[in-house]
């Protein structure tokens, strides 16, 4: 900002005539932008809730699988999908969190020179890497090069690449917020650096780090692209991450979407057309949204209890 040039004669009152009108127009447009953004959100959430509610409150949604069901059959559950998603995300979290924490500690507490710069840059690149490319990479390594079989754990590996940058970014930010006085006080007492980091810095930033982890989990729980490339969808229960096709919530939505169809049944003496697959698709979508939203709320909750804040 070098110069401010206000066009037109300056009136005593801020704005008059055409300038005032322009101001009003701008205000209206800006308020309209917010409304425009709210439309798809409300519309989408309403669609998913209104169409999916009956499904997830139905019998056996959280206890049954989709074994042997086609679009002509009612009922069935999503347990196989929920278990698959939870297993894949859990393995991904177990792998990502230690790596991401160490990277963040490195960047904040140790990072100097070309390696630190390269790492920061790579975190940025990982943030933007398309999930399908991550999936292709894992495929090229484990299936093409080592002739492995598609299985749930490969999905977890692809998700690791998507989760690490999220956790690194938040953790890094939180560690930087820890006041330096705390570190200095610790050093002054003769505490070595590693102990300062482990016992002082990390606990202080813990709630922020947890927030990052939960956000990372929420980010990968809804990922679909790696599922398409790295594991087949199975409508049956398969609790084994390491072999065979496995169900998952996004996979189930995709599967039901691919088999949409209506069938005619007799209800109260009338022929009615019903869409079982569509009902299940929206119910699975609602289940997934509830899972992700719950994680997001959890992250907010943890964040609000944070000891350090920006």
């Amino acid at each position, binding site marked *: 900002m070098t110069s401010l040039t206000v066009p037109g004669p300056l*009136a005593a009152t801020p704005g008059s005539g055409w300038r005032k009108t322009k101001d009003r127009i701008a205000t209206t447009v800006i308020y309209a932008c917010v409304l*425009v953004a709210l439309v798809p*959100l409300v519309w989408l959430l309403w669609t998913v809730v209104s169409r999916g509610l009956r499904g997830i409150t139905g019998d056996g949604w959280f206890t049954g699988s989709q074994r042997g069901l086609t679009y002509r059959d009612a009922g069935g559950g999503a347990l196989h999908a929920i278990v698959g998603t939870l297993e894949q995300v859990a393995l991904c979290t177990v792998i990502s969190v230690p790596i991401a924490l160490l990277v963040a500690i490195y960047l904040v507490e140790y990072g100097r020179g070309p390696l630190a710069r390269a790492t920061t840059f790579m975190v940025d*690149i990982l943030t933007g890497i398309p999930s399908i490319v991550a999936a292709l990479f894992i495929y090229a390594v484990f299936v*093409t090069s080592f002739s492995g079989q598609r299985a749930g754990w490969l999905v977890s590996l692809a998700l690791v690449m998507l989760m690490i940058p999220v956790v690194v970014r938040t953790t890094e930010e939180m560690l930087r917020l820890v006041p330096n006085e705390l570190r200095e006080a610790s050093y002054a007492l003769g505490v*070595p650096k590693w102990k300062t980091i482990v016992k002082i810095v990390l606990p202080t930033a813990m709630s922020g780090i947890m927030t990052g982890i939960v956000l990372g989990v929420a980010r990968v729980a*809804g990922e679909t692209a790696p599922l398409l490339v790295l594991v087949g969808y199975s409508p049956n229960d398969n609790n084994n991450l390491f072999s065979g096709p496995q169900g998952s919530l996004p996979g189930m939505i*995709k599967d039901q979407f691919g088999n949409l169809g209506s069938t005619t049944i007799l209800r109260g003496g009338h022929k009615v057309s019903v869409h079982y697959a569509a009902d299940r698709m929206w119910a699975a979508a609602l289940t997934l949204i509830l899972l992700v939203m719950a994680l997001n709320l959890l992250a*907010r909750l943890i964040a609000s209890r944070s000891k350090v804040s920006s």
Partner: protein
Amino acid sequence: MPKRDSRMDRTPSDTGTARLADPPQADFEHPEPSGAAGDRRGPVIGSSQSAGVLPDDEPVFGAGTLGGRIGPGRFADRLLAGLSSGAGAFLVLLIGLVTVFLVIRALPAITADKSNFLTARSWDVGGDAPDFGVLPLLWVTVLISLVAMVLAVPVAIGIALFISQYAPARVARPVAYVIDLLAAIPSIIYGVWGIAVLAPKIQPVADWLSGHAGWVPLFKDYNVKGGTIFTGGVVLAVMILPIVTAIGRDVFERTPRANIEAAWALGATHWEVIRLAVLPYGRPGLVSGAMLGLGRALGETIAITLILSKVSNTGAFSFSIFNGGETFASKIANNAAEFNSPAQTGAYIAAGLVLFVLTFAVNAAARWVVNRRKEFS
């Protein structure tokens, strides 16, 4: 807010390292008081730069962790320093591996390709004589992302201005949270909603546009209903809205108070304050935010896969946003179940490689804009 003080990290430990490593007389040759060494290396006290862009004279990987004293803490210090810098190196290696593996797997397919990989429009990878090119994929990917940008960026700027400049804090916070919720919705749900619910509702808009401006190649009617680039672009716009908004909010909130107050003092209206003080200040940030959104849009997979109708690539080249097509990501996703022979898979990996290069370039450029700004502010 006090930022990290590099002197604190270096002073006791660097000199300690030197003492440990050097022969005893080294201390006489460099009789500097401890602390001076750290100072001379350029402490960045109170600097707002992140560690990643600290100017530095020499790499000190983990060297700063060797305590001045020799004790049980030393091993643990080394361990943590080694582990954490190892994790950093792992990430760098990971991106390197991604590039290497994609290239290794893609090259045989590209060399076996009968036609030009970049400019051909066919996609025949099943047989012995593969004949494929990525031109239609590139076109659809770029076009759908541009549609999304054109729709999302102005709205995102409006929302960012609302949150940072117009709304009082008790309104701004919930609005910001609600916009962030858009980012939390899984993309497959966007896809299902986009094709099943949104597409029929915006079809009249598409019909009107192609009816009145159909002579423009961009708006030519191809009689594809619903699964068009236009629908995909609208859904993508919703998906990238929170990213662009978040960055815009961030830069607008950092507009120096003095600039805004100066504009007010000159008698500017609220809009003039924004046009004269806020927008010019935030422009580089906005550019990079938009590019991050673009990067996201280029790589979006499942939503686009569900929405876009596949069309044949024979006949005249289609420029229209009212046609179907396939992006890089949706092409790969559509055929993921049929990865059989290495040669066939290689073609898709080659497509993935082009997508990787594309998003890499866009993201790197966006970061470059951000970082360049950081150095000046």
